[in-house]
């Protein structure tokens, strides 16, 4: 699914990633750990196709439409409602039976009752739940999740655990976290980045 060889990335003079090798087979679950500034986010952005490496190579066997990316920002519009955001992404991803899929995800992540409220009025945790709905909306083959538990309360974290358990093996995961213990039951591989 994903093969990286001697991957590196520089921003001007600053080198944020160096000599990363990784192989992520289809159905794998790779957990990336490392201190702040170790390049986790940069690595995930490169793997998602959002950035290009300045050194090394990366091979992806999925199209960009089959990637689900969760970044530090939820990537939703604050002045739109949850439903409008998912409707927009659903259209762009050509999701079949969009309304049903959106409704199912909003229900599952506890946002159905607030679906017509603007995201600007949501708490950080609710926004993160919406971001997870956005990521799962088009049923991606490769899920690239950067700190997915960030801002989630215990109920939200359990919802995410249940989702990961359901999709584990069926989808391929590349996930960066500061809480590797929580993901221990799912992980098929680990990559620790040095600062």
């Amino acid at each position, binding site marked *: 699914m994903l093969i990286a060889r001697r991957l590196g990335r520089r921003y001007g003079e600053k080198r944020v990633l160096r000599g990363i090798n990784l192989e992520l087979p289809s159905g794998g679950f790779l957990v990336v750990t490392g201190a702040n500034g170790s390049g986790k986010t940069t690595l995930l*952005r490169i793997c*998602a*196709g*959002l*950035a*290009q490496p300045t050194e090394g190579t990366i091979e992806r066997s999925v*199209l*960009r*439409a089959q*990637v689900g*990316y969760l*970044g530090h*920002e*939820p*990537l*939703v*519009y*604050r*002045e*739109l409602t949850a439903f*409008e955001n998912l409707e*927009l*992404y659903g*259209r*762009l*991803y*050509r999701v079949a039976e969009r309304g049903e899929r959106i409704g199912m995800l909003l229900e599952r992540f506890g946002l159905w009752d607030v679906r017509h409220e*603007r995201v600007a009025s949501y708490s950080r945790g609710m926004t993160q739940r919406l971001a997870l709905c*956005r990521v799962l909306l088009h049923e991606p083959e490769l899920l690239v999740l950067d700190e997915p538990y960030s801002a989630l309360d215990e109920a939200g974290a359990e919802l995410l655990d249940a989702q990961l358990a359901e999709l584990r093996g069926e989808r391929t995961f590349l996930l960066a976290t500061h809480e590797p213990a929580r993901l221990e039951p799912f992980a098929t591989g680990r990559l620790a980045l040095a600062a």
Partner: protein
Amino acid sequence: MSYFRDVGALARKDLLLELRARDTLPAMLLFVASVFVVFHFALPASPSRLATIGLLWVAILFTALLGLGRAFVPEREQRTMDGLVLTPCDRSAIWLAKSLATLAFLAAAEVVALPLYAVFFHPIGGATVAAVVLADIGICAVGTFLGAMAVATRARDLLLPLLFLPLAIPIVVGAVGASVAASPARYLGFLVLYDALFAVVCWASFEYVVAE
């Protein structure tokens, strides 16, 4: 057809965002109206048509610049460009939709600006209206493209006018020429050529603007 459906969905999103946030169009309206009011009092009584036509085009250009400067603000502040570029839609659809939304804001500002100009200065002729339509297309096509480039930089507020104004000089030449010349067809043809050329260039190269 799916390309135009994507453009429609993205443009609708931009119009909805403006309808909710109201942070672009009111600023454009206030700016263009203020310019005409100020110059109405600043210029001598009965200024020449030639001078006021120049004023009209400067006002339109800087009003457009206000809108263009805000065009990618939601994508920058909420980092949603990452979300959009990952979707399977052609990346040029993002540029086209944003250009259409900016064009709608500029046209709305001009619906107020042109009658105001006619009240304060001189009547507007058909050739000027045609020039406004054609110039708007060029301004929005080029400006949106440059806005996407500038928004990724730290000096975005400075960079956009620096990049845009030199490229807008041919638009001003064509538009002022069409507004004052006895036979404006040549100038209108020039604006059509400018629009077609730059629309194709921006459409074809937007992919590289949003790639990191």
